[in-house]
């Protein structure tokens, strides 16, 4: 395994599932974010920093939204334990209800159905989560995960300009590897958050929040015919402990907190600046049963994350909007062999990103936007148990272009294109990776009460000088009701 930044990926995955439907407009425009004016791309403490306290001020339009969606990826460019093809289907429901002095209520539900085709040996839900441990069997088969996610959030003004908010999120997934060992997974994740935000005069708002996560993944591989199941508990990539029996169990528990602070400056309609900083710590324990009641810790992985991002947007002229993005991330992780209290892997990823762009209203019906981002990444990985060491400094570049054209007052067509050039791909481990992403979408107001939005995207990522590829196909379709 090379260096991973999958923790970020997993965290983003959770939030992207819940926010994706809302961002269908910008997603259809090539993923423009900081240089376009959009309700869902605000820099306020809720949208940029995830502080629920500011939900009441950030989201003032009641709506009910139903969004079926699909994400697929497939191809030869993958890691050892990444499935050859992954199809993810979901139906997302969102209910946002401002309640006046009682604040604002947000409810979300998602039913997720994921099929991983040709899942090679892997039995973990997230095989590459930055941990030095794998759990595998001897089979290649299709794995299905399915289950719901619920989220409830509430925000209200508790005293003059002081806002408080909080929320809970619960997700449960059942997984089944439909071959020989019939590896069954029960994945449960509970999250909660609390936040405060205070609005000063002059358009300045500051916020603070804390977000907690507690998850458990229970895996059991057993053969229906009570034949021997062979599973492997990997410490690193080279050394594993073979376990045998008619049934093998493994458990992964994770707990962590993220402490966040936000500053939002929005003095007038022309200028908007937001800064959000997160510091998160978490730990994962890898357990196997010893006897019927006692779980023994075989491994432990620790993570701490510092993530600071700043966004600015300025209306230069009536038609031109300029945007700026800055960010800094620092991920640290180590994994230990708990039985012997020995370090088996430690890695650190640091990255700084600078982006700028703008959007221009060519006329009242036509909007075009461009963003360019450069990311400097420094990674250091020491996989002691495998005797593999790597230190790399790379520059990754992204260019986005997006278009929106109103055919009529009620119908808008959208399109976009992204080009990514990655000196090193931390997701799949390839070097000299390029990606082309094409997006399409539309928005249609059936009447004042109902709005339709749709988007589709196709991306092709080529790694190792075009020898391997991975394609991504996503679509979603949402229907919004503004009164219900």
């Amino acid at each position: 395994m090379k260096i991973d930044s999958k923790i970020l990926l997993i965290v983003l995955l959770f939030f992207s599932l819940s926010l994706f439907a809302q961002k269908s407009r910008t997603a259809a425009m090539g993923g423009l974010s900081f240089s376009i004016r959009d309700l869902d791309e605000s820099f306020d403490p809720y949208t940029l920093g995830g502080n629920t306290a500011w939900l009441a001020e950030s989201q003032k339009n009641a709506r009910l939204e139903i969004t079926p969606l699909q994400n697929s990826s497939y191809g030869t460019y993958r890691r050892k334990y990444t499935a050859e093809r992954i199809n993810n289907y979901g139906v997302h429901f969102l209910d946002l209800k401002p309640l006046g002095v009682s604040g604002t209520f947000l409810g979300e539900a998602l039913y997720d159905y994921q099929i991983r085709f040709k899942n090679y040996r892997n039995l973990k839900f997230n095989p590459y989560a930055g941990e030095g441990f794998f759990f595998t069997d001897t089979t290649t088969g299709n794995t299905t995960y399915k289950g719901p996610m619920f989220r409830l959030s509430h925000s209200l003004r508790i005293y003059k300009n002081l806002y408080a908010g909080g929320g809970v999120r619960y997700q449960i997934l059942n997984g089944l590897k439909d071959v020989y060992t019939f590896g069954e997974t029960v994945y449960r994740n509970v999250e909660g958050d609390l936040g405060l935000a205070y609005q000063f005069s002059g358009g300045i708002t500051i916020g603070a929040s804390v977000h907690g996560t507690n998850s458990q993944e229970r895996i059991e591989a057993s053969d229906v015919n009570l034949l021997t199941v062979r599973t492997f508990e990997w410490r690193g990539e080279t050394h594993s402990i073979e376990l045998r029996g008619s049934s093998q169990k493994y458990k992964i528990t994770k707990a962590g907190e993220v402490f966040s602070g936000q500053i939002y400056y929005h003095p007038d309609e022309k200028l908007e600046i937001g800064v959000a900083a997160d510091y998160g710590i978490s730990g994962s324990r890898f357990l196997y049963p010893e006897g019927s009641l006692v779980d023994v810790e075989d491994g432990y992985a620790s993570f701490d994350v510092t993530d600071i991002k700043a966004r600015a947007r300025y209306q230069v002229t009536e038609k031109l909007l300029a945007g700026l993005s800055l960010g800094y991330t620092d991920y640290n992780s180590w994994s230990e062999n708990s039985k012997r209290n020995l370090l088996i892997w430690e890695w650190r990823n640091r990255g700084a990103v600078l982006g700028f762009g703008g959007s221009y209203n060519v006329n009242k019906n036509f909007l075009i936007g461009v963003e360019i981002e450069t990311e400097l990444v420094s990674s250091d990985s020491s996989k002691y148990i495998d005797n593999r060491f790597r230190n790399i400094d790379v520059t990754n570049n992204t260019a986005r272009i997006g278009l929106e054209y109103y055919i009529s007052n009620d119908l808008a067509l959208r399109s976009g294109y992204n080009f990514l050039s990655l000196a090193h791909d931390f997701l799949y481990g390839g070097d000299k990776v390029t990606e082309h992403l094409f997006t399409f979408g539309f928005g249609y107001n059936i009447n004042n009460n109902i709005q339709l939005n749709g988007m589709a995207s196709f991306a092709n990522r080529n790694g190792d000088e075009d020898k391997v590829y991975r394609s991504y196909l996503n679509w979603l379709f949402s229907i919004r009701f503004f009164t219900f």
Partner: protein
Amino acid sequence: MKIKFLILILLGFTVFVSCEKTPPTQVDGEAEVNLFVARDSIGTDTTQIYTIPVPNADIILTSEYGTMNRKTDEFGNLTLRNIPSSIYQIAARAHHPYDNSILLIAGIKDVEIISGKTFIDTLVTKPISSTGIAINEIYSCGPVNNIFFFYDQYIELYNSSDSVKYLDGMIVARVSGQNGGMGPGADVGNDGDIDGVTYIFKFPGHPGEKNYPFEPHTFKVLAQDAVDHTQTMPTSIDLSHADWEFVNQLSFNDFDNPDVPNLYNIRLDRTVDFMISLTSDVVIVTDGRDSVWEDGIDISTILDGVEYQSSGTHRLTLDDRVDRGWVQSAPKYSGKSMERRDKGVDTNDGTLDWHVINHPTPGYQ
């Protein structure tokens, strides 16, 4: 009210709090092992005793991570770097350069190899040669199938001595009783015998008689049922030419091949064929002087005993006077077999003497 609510929520938030650990100061995977394998010069040079390097010796390291096989260089040295910390069993074996029938062996047990340190040792091998009758192969797991077919089990014996041995009155037993928690093959009461005999079958005749010779350097295959099992299960094997067959004379339906001589059951409360567990059991072969199984089998009469287990973390239960190690068995219904690395060579350490082979080889085919 709001304050109380807030406190309640904050208390509820403690379920998320992770117990942050500090990273270990030592790293794994940085252990080094330096071994020198030698033999003494006795038998090759009578003027002076000195050690001679053993080149190209097989070095077998076993630990919770499995088995590593390496070879010494031309000077008898082996250096292993970046191996993970664990408790290792280390064995060295090589054929004597002047007499291929002599095996040179050495071993060290329960060596804790710690990351960041170098383990240095010299393994002085001892010659092992003809030791008599030993269990050479146990095929227990059954062929590849999903209908629970395992009736093609067999045990293979090898006479590694240079003289004719006789099977008259010898006993083959399965010892799987739990012995009050001490496990199969343990000596309950420490009275010099192993207890927990489950099945016990006997060759015809009595110890000391000479009617059933076992020629030197030959094999004897003892089949559960001496038939061509491929007729029933294509993935199975043909045992119709086995040397001996287990037959329970008290069973009404145990198959008996009339062309193959039988071992008969001497435990009268058992009415089924000689079956052994697919993946975890103890099998012993005795000279037959002690056939009173109820009070245990005297250890002094045991010619060979093997414990095989499926779990990699198993602890030996067989009395260490019979064998000091256990064999990692093949998975159920995998069609694999367990065999000695060197035919008939019994160093009384099953862990190092045995390995799993991909296909059964009755009669060392």
